[in-house]
């Protein structure tokens, strides 16, 4: 799995990559503009990112603008829905305004608030279908 971690905090990038390195190759960007550059370059080289972890508050270009640009690039390239890069917003902004903007204006379905625990990030990877769930979700549970 190819992973792009976008965060202006070195300690946050390290914390996130310590969790994700066992699942794939981690690249880094320190702001939204660099993230868009890295995303485009990876797409052009035929090795697109499977997962992007996106902070929101960053210098130069924030996570919302970067996510919108990445979405637009994927639309323009007519990338098949199944091949689109998955995105998780991982931010210290835990207020309704930021979370609603992420979900309903930027179109990101997964949001994790900082500080976060490893198990929360791994759970999100599972729910994005990027790693196998520890339980079979297709099997119906008995109804009691």
């Amino acid at each position, binding site marked *: 799995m190819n992973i792009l971690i976008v965060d202006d905090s070195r300690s946050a990038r390290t914390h996130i990559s310590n969790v994700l390195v066992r699942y794939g190759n981690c690249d880094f960007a320190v702001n939204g503009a660099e993230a868009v550059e890295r995303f485009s370059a990876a797409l052009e080289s035929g090795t697109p990112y499977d997962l992007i972890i996106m902070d929101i508050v960053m210098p130069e270009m924030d996570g919302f603008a970067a996510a919108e640009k990445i979405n637009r690039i994927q639309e323009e390239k007519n990338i098949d829905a199944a091949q689109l890069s998955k995105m998780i917003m991982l931010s210290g902004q*835990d*207020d*309704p305004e930021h*979370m*609603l903007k992420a*979900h*309903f204006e930027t*179109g990101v*379905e*997964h*949001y*994790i*608030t900082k500080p*976060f625990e490893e*198990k*929360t990030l791994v*759970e*999100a990877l*599972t*729910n994005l*279908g990027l790693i*196998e*769930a*520890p*339980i*079979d*979700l*297709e*099997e119906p*549970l*008995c*109804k*009691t």
Partner: protein
Amino acid sequence: MQNVMHKYPEVPAYFLKIGEGGIFDQPSVISTVLGSCVTVTFHCARTKTGALFHAILPKLRTYEKKPDDVNPYKYVDSAIICLHRSLKARGIRMADVETKVFGGAGILLEGQLSSGQANVKVAFETLAALKMKVLATDVGGDRGRRLVFISHTGEVYIRTHSKNLQNT
């Protein structure tokens, strides 16, 4: 990959229907299926207590003239307030409780809230007003979700439906 009942063989399983919710102080596995409806899960790691609901509409007072006679789990705001109050009444410190928000799928319409979006907005606003910690959210989009909540660990696993809501 294990069937959930094999991983937790002694743990009772429940299916949560629309307008249902409650607190689980014994280990339990609860599943539900969400479209535009919203589920908020609550988990206290210290006491291994879990709680959740499955609400269909955003605000109780928008729809009900006699709020005291109404099932609180039908509405997002009253369901959150009811579980917050009930957990506190059991002596659980709200600082120890972490929440996650799920569901709220719908077709986005230009310039107006979809029913799913309205449900999520009220969930976020009610949790913020109660100063409750939101750990993670998996909301929006145009596909339904099947959810499994493990009450004593707080884990939530989601499978997103393959068809969007317009095609179901």
